[in-house]
């Protein structure tokens, strides 16, 4: 009896090890393809996509001079349509000063403190999401190339390890759902492959725009794990791994998700 159970468990472990393999390139699918046609239409129509409200605000902020240094984003970076094209597709990127990767929100805040002498914007604040959405929108359709910098390799490896690490009271790893069960449903909702192609994105459930970090924290709470704080290196490494895992897929920001 005990032998039989041991064999059973060994069999399960072997099955898990096989299934944990990454999704082959040709089978990768954006979350967009899991949505209903109505929600896809909402994302694809800029006059119906609520994320565009943040893009509009972000454009105003891009041109607004910050009081202390009297400089706007536009004073250094000029026309975002040219200077920011493809930028979001490369983030999180390695920051030489900090010696670690930073995501787009953190880059904006670094720019604010270093060049604009302006206070940092809080994570998930409307202004930070708006500037991020405006910058990310300039990369729409650009293939994701985050993580191609060789300096990022150790951080991608850490992110990958965290992605495959079982955690929380439900003892689930990201990979258990998003690599192994993406063709299934959870409580009626599609599980999806977890490609971060459209952040910051408008979630109908949130009724607002949110960052990838918010999404990751929500997933962690969902598996009854203690979520990492906004801006923590672990979350950035996870973001970096997810983006490098989606390399080559087109950017969709600001996307809409159910």
């Amino acid at each position, binding site marked *: 009896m005990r032998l039989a159970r041991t064999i059973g468990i060994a069999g399960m472990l072997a099955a898990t090890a096989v299934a944990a393999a990454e999704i082959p390139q040709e089978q990768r699918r954006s979350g967009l393809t899991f949505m209903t046609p109505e929600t896809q239409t909402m994302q694809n*129509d800029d*006059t*119906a996509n609520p994320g*565009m*409200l943040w893009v509009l*605000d972000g454009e*105003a902020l891009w041109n607004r001079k910050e009081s202390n240094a009297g400089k706007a984003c536009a004073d250094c970076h000029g026309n975002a349509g040219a200077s920011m094209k493809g930028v979001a597709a490369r983030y999180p990127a390695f920051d030489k000063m900090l010696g670690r990767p930073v995501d787009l929100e953190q880059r904006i805040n670094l720019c604010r403190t270093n060049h604009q002498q302006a206070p940092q914007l809080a994570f998930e604040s409307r202004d930070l999401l708006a500037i991020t959405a405006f910058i990310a929108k300039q990369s729409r359709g650009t293939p994701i190339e985050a993580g191609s910098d060789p300096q990022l390799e150790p951080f991608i490896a850490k992110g990958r390890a965290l992605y495959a690490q079982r955690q929380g009271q439900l003892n689930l790893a990201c990979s258990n759902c998003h690599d192994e069960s993406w063709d299934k449903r959870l409580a009626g909702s599609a599980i999806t492959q977890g490609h971060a192609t459209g952040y910051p994105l408008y979630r*109908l459930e949130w*009724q607002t725009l949110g960052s990838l970090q918010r999404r990751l924290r929500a997933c962690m709470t969902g598996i009854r794990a203690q979520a990492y704080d906004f801006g923590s290196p672990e979350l950035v490494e996870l973001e970096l791994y997810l983006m490098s895992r989606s390399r080559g897929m087109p950017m969709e920001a600001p996307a809409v998700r159910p």
Partner: protein
Amino acid sequence: MPSALVNIPKKAKRGDVIEIKTLMSHIMETGYRHTASGEAVARDIITSFTCRFNGAEIFRADLFPAIAANPFFTFFATVTESGKFEFEWVGDKGFSETASASISVE
């Protein structure tokens, strides 16, 4: 920072049926929620949306707490002359926003 997205065709032929799309930035707080300490969160919604064409009202909607944040309205109109569409959103806490868009009819 309220902002509106309004979309109508710039040109149309006389008698054409055109689609009008509007999206308004608003939290639409229902008034049914409570904070962690048990206090009620005051209702803060848009209560009325109106569209006028050359001064005449052509579309109006009353909004209620069940309507999602950032309400999106799309409706159709037959155009017979060039003119200006004016949109107005009115709500709780003195909320009042307007937007406009012009169309030329040939």
